[in-house]
């Protein structure tokens, strides 16, 4: 008896010691299962799959990095999509995109076929990846120095990091030819521009603004959407008085909340304040950024968010808006699309959907047209053949952009003239605002290097939780910027 117990315990201990002391599971399983005694060995087997191996798991997931991808409108397609090669030409273009939805996927497929037909020397290998899987795979490809030829990009700090490491191509010379560069609206392409280098081109771009529920506004006796921050706070008070949750917010994910702070900073300090801070001539602890925090605190103090918003994710946020449980949200152009999927009654949802831009702040230096936004684009790996650039040029032709806008794929489109294809009134308005914006700013958590972007997200969450003063929040962001933005 005792011997048996000893053996089992020993087997258990040896199994556990190997892996529990941080790491490697593989060898342990074998030992555990080789122990005699029937019942307890089961426990031993379980032991190996036990809590120990956490960090390694973390490492595996690792590369699926920034969870906070605003563009990640949930499109859960579980079935893996095999890659397909189109054409048989000798010049191969490797293309990774993340448009898993059937209509979008087929659209790319169709365009690739059309291109290859006219260019028989080219073949295009398409790999369709789910958003998070794409980011994981791309990071690995980048670290091994072999990026795909054409791939999804959101521009901003992540793309710049790849550019600085010489892993992506500079498109500036190609864009100068035959007016390709001028065919884009200036705002969207600025997201891919870093000094005199341009590391990618957009194929859709939108902006963040307030989506609201007209029926709930009416119920609270609000005649008009607010134009200024003061009016906005009044609207919140009225909604509260009418017993309606004024704002839906999935602040567990942090990026939905960071829009508020960034927009306020944009309205208060304007382009100059941000660009100074970014160029290290100014600081993220400057008065305009502190003021953004103070204004946001005014809102948070009214308790306008749903109960438990700090623990709610973007999925909860979507469900609230989709089903009329909250009156408004500050969100990008993808919001209605995501919410229609979660709405119990799509007709009512569509009928009540309204949009207004972020209110202006009294006395702020920012222009009322300044827009915070972002969208999708393509970047080119360092070894991409010239045909790859020509191919993307074809994708972003005004004809193709118009057709894609019409089909609801490139919404809002980014090529001048393609907006003719749009028929959704709200998206049309967003598109025209993006086109007219004097200053088009990408979300900070994408534009800034990842370390600073995440610091913005983390610090603004503290404002929403009411645990930290606006001065300290600005200081925390500045500390991260001071380390990362020095080159």
């Amino acid at each position: 008896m005792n011997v048996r117990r000893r053996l089992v315990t020993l087997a258990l201990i040896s199994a556990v010691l190997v892996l529990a002391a941080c790491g490697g599971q593989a060898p342990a399983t074998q030992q555990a299962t080789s122990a005699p005694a029937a019942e307890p060995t089961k426990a031993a087997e379980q032991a190996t799959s036990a809590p120990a191996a956490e960090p390694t798991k973390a490492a595996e997931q690792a590369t699926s990095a920034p969870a906070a991808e605003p563009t990640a409108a949930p499109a859960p397609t579980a079935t893996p999509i095999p890659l397909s090669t189109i054409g048989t030409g000798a010049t191969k273009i490797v293309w990774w995109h993340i448009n898993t939805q059937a209509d979008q996927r087929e659209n790319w497929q169709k365009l690739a076929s059309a291109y290859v037909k006219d260019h028989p020397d080219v073949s295009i290998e398409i790999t369709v990846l789910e958003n998070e899987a794409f980011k994981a795979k791309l990071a690995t490809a980048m670290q091994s120095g072999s990026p795909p030829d054409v791939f999804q990009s959101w521009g901003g700090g992540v793309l710049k990091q790849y550019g600085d490491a010489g892993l992506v191509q500079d498109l500036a010379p190609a864009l100068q030819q035959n007016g390709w560069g001028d065919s884009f609206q200036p705002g969207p392409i600025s997201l891919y521009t870093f000094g005199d280098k341009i590391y990618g081109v957009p194929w859709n771009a939108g902006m963040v603004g307030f989506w609201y529920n007209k029926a709930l506004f009416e119920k609270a006796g609000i005649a008009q959407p607010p134009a200024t921050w003061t009016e906005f706070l009044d609207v919140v008070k009225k909604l509260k008085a009418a017993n309606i949750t004024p704002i839906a917010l999935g602040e567990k994910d942090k990026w939905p909340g960071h829009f508020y702070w960034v927009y306020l900073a944009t309205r208060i300090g304007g382009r100059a304040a941000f660009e100074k801070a970014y160029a290290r001539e100014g600081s993220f602890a400057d008065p305009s950024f502190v003021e953004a925090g103070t204004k946001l605190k005014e809102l948070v103090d009214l308790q306008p968010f749903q109960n438990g918003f700090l623990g709610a994710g973007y999925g909860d946020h979507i469900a609230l808006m989709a089903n009329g449980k909250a009156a408004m949200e500050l969100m990008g152009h993808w919001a209605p699309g995501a919410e229609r999927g979660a709405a119990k009654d799509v007709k009512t949802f569509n009928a009540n959907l309204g949009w207004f831009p972020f209110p202006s702040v009294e006395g702020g230096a920012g222009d009322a047209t300044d827009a915070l936004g972002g969208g999708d684009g393509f970047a080119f790996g360092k070894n991409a053949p010239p045909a790859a650039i020509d191919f993307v040029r074809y994708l972003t032709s005004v004809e193709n952009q118009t057709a894609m806008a019409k089909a609801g794929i490139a919404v809002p489109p980014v090529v001048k003239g393609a907006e003719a294809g749009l028929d959704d009134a709200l998206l049309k308005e967003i598109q025209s605002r993006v086109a007219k914006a004097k200053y088009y700013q990408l979300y900070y958590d994408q534009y800034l290097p990842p370390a600073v972007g995440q610091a913005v997200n983390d610090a603004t969450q503290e404002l929403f939780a009411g645990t930290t003063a606006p001065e300290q929040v600005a200081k925390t962001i500045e500390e991260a910027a001071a380390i990362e933005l020095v080159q």
Partner: protein
Amino acid sequence: MQTSSQPIERMIVRRPRIRWGHLATIVGFLLPGALIYIGLVLLPVAQAVYYSFFRWNGLGPLTNFTGLANYTRALSDRVFLLSLGHNLQLIVLSLAIQIPLALGLALLIRGLTRGRAIFRTIFFMPFVLSEIVTGVIWSFIYRPDGGLVETLFSSIAPGFAKTALLADPKTVLYALFVVITWKFFGYHMILYIAGLQNIPTEVEEAAQIDGCSRLQALRYITIPLLSSTIRLTIYLSVLGSLQFFDLIWIMTTGGPVNASDTMATYLYKFGFQRFQLGYGSAIAVIMFLICFGFSIAYQTFAMRRDFE
């Protein structure tokens, strides 16, 4: 003469003749395991140590040597120390609540005449679930609108203030600890049941014949005989608490406002989300040293008897 010649003789006799075939067998058996262990455990650890001396975003060559800067940054970072504190809190809670609970249930189940297997299975069930599934289930249970906890409390106490346990920095860690306990007590319980099965009933019977009360039998016979299992579960519990990740990441991502961050979630946030692989490596090394230090100390002082 006799006494002094004997050791010499023995040495001559026992001089090892290298038996190459025998050695090859040993090496042959050791090599595959050793290679896996070196390749998947020791080498990555060494690599992490190396990376931790650089400021590095994971792309391109390692050029920016910063010495121990990553370590001093970690040890002076408020959030990291907070995270470490949460790990320690989880250890204390686990040892104070989870282990006694598991032991108590194991004893109760042993006392049952019928239905042992059923109860054992029921209690063990949560452990079989993956941590991801557990996290998702409990996120539903804790939902502030229509979740089980909220519904339960508001029906017991009408007008009960709505609970959002995961959204409140003050309650989030305890709410998570409830889930952790729910998930892992069954595992410790199974270990205890296995240990209890190996205690000869004769010993306890003899003690009872000698006039020992049930409580005394528990205190002086059962628990001491179970001590090696107890030492083992404490060991597992502490290491598990030091490395907690999945469940917390699913349920709260360490928030709100770092209130449920552990060293592992902190490592993930900084190493991977912020692309600071050098700094992340330093955190990993610190975690490793803490676990390793604990392992060595615990094995040397508490578990030595179990290996004899």
